[in-house]
């Protein structure tokens, strides 16, 4: 049995601000990290891998430096890692990324269970999971917050919906996207870090995957960003100043104005 976890490299901070002098966009990211939502998927893979005696793979599409994050995932308990890296993949939107990942999973011989974080913090689209499941031709369940039962052929899971949850059975092979807090991702141990550095790792390009050039990278991406901007601000705010007591007084006036009744 094989379990594959999709892992994305994201900037450690999403802070983007306007340079007050040049009025241009400046990003403050200092380090690339594993998408925090993916860490729950990694932990679930490790737990299910132990329970079902399955081989666990981390898979990512990204720049060569992503190897570091994949090895970190192995330090946390995954068995092996695969990086899909090629200049031809650059500019991929979710459709092209899902296609590329599906080739990687095919290359490893298919997976009985594919796990994704519910979304990536830098894109917030939450589309990769369902699109990848479609490319693989397997069913999917999003926002899974609990795996109640797991056998090599079937899972019983709970997923979050608005105002509640649903309990579902899912026949494998299938893909799940997991919600935050489905588990508590473990930290690696020293022994784990040692393993991570030695773990089996494979890097593959478009040719090795047999990718159709029309379906990868920017060319295979139907959507395209045509403009980015920091939105215009509204009118100037009224500045309240003074010591804490004065400010409290002013705030109370504003609150009373809103709640429409005078002072008691």
């Amino acid at each position, binding site marked *: 049995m094989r379990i594959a976890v999709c892992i994305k490299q994201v*900037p450690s901070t*999403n802070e983007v*601000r306007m340079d007050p002098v040049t009025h*241009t*966009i400046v*990003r403050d*990211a200092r380090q690339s990290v594993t998408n925090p939502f993916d860490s729950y998927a990694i932990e679930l893979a490790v737990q299910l891998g132990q329970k079902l005696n399955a081989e666990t793979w981390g898979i990512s599409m990204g720049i060569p430096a992503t190897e570091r994050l994949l090895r970190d995932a192995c330090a946390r308990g995954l068995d092996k890692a695969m990086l899909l890296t090629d*200049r031809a993949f*650059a*500019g991929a*939107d*979710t*459709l092209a990324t*899902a296609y590329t990942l599906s080739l990687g999973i095919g290359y490893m011989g298919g997976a009985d269970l594919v796990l994704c974080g519910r979304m990536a913090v*830098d894109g*917030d689209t939450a*589309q990769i*999971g*369902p699109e*990848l499941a*479609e490319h693989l031709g397997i069913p999917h*369940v999003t*926002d899974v917050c609990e795996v109640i039962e797991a056998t090599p052929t079937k899972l*019983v899971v709970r997923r979050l*919906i*608005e*105002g509640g949850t*649903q309990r*579902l*059975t*899912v026949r494998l092979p299938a893909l799940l996207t997991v919600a935050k807090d489905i588990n508590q991702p473990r930290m690696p141990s020293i022994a784990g870090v040692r393993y991570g550095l030695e773990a089996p790792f494979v890097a593959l390009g478009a040719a090795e995957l047999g990718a*159709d050039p*029309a379906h990868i*990278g*920017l060319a295979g*991406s*139907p*959507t*395209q*960003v*045509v*403009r*980015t*901007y*920091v*939105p215009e601000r*509204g009118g100037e705010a*009224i500045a309240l100043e003074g010591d*804490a007591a004065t*400010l*409290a*007084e*002013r*705030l109370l006036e*504003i*609150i009373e104005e*809103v*709640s429409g009744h005078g*002072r*008691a």
Partner: protein
Amino acid sequence: MAELKINLDRCVGCGLCVSSCPAGALSMADKKARVDPDTCVLCGLCLGSCRFGAISIEKDHGGAADRDSYRDIWVFCEQRSGAVLDVGLELIAKARELAERRGCRVAALLLGRQVAHAAHSLIAAGADTVYLCEDAQLGHNLELPYAEVITRLIRSHRPEILLFGATAFGRSLAPRVAARVQTGLTADCTELDIDPDTGLLLQTRPAFGGNLMATIHTQIFRPQMATVRPGVLPAPTPDLTRTGEIVPVAPPEGLFDAVVLLEEVLTPPAASIADAEIIVAAGRGIDGHKNMALVEELAELLGGAVGCSRAVVDIGWAEYRHQIGQTGLAVSPKLLIACGISGSIQFLAGIGGAQKVVAINTDPEAPIFGVADYKIVGDCVEVLSALIARIKADRGL
């Protein structure tokens, strides 16, 4: 292969693009911008940074759809137990507005077990046609039977645009459909616009972690698909005099039993911050888990609710149900007191409906001040403590 192009005649060597690049792929050489193609991820962020139009992304397209054969704007109208969700009506109204400009029609997709009774409300909201599919397999919101019906309809009727509400189900179903028909999908749009001549849908959403707005389009592929969060678009006033046609659709072809619903547990709707009149909202700037108690105390004193930014939920100071923003709830209180919230675009996307905003932050450059009616540059803990003490004193507590 696609690549980033710098027009050296236009480039004035100002260097603005260099600082905008998240990948560190841009640099200056000989007073001109230069791109390292091995590092560039073609994210497009630099396009907006160049004031001289010197940067472009050249794209050689894969399979192009026969665009001209696609027509009309469709809205998928999700229902629960036969009741259409408000977001479907909001989308129909938006679709109506876009269709008027494009000169096309609006169709609603209504799928479920027994849902025919709801069709007229969709017409009243602005639909010209309702595609109605009733079947036991559609009784629960499960992706596979829904995707089968919708893709079949897309293939036979070729809509130019297809919109979904960004509910849990919509966000799961739409990408499944998009991948099956091999087209683009833009999640969580906050603005939709249309080019009346080409029918190109301009989809605007917070991007890059919600700190920037990005306008995205799907130039070649059809239909153009997008999801929009509930509550972002205004609800329509139903026009009960409108007429339209109801077109029955054949039920899902095949048995979809890979995913089976065993049980649905709905917790009785707790008082949601979406309905609160006063919200005291905390951001990471409150500087410590313990200061959440101040926020909670003030909210209680004011009979309001506690809200928070995503950062606060991420570090575990509050539960997700308090989260305001693009990935949380859209709120529309009479008063929002934002404490230590910097005001990322992703947060601001959720407070568009707030009537009055008071922002307290130590950083005078915090973007939250840009949307605030009142601003206090200072330590919110100090201000909150004083305000709480003051209210308690007034009430003799």
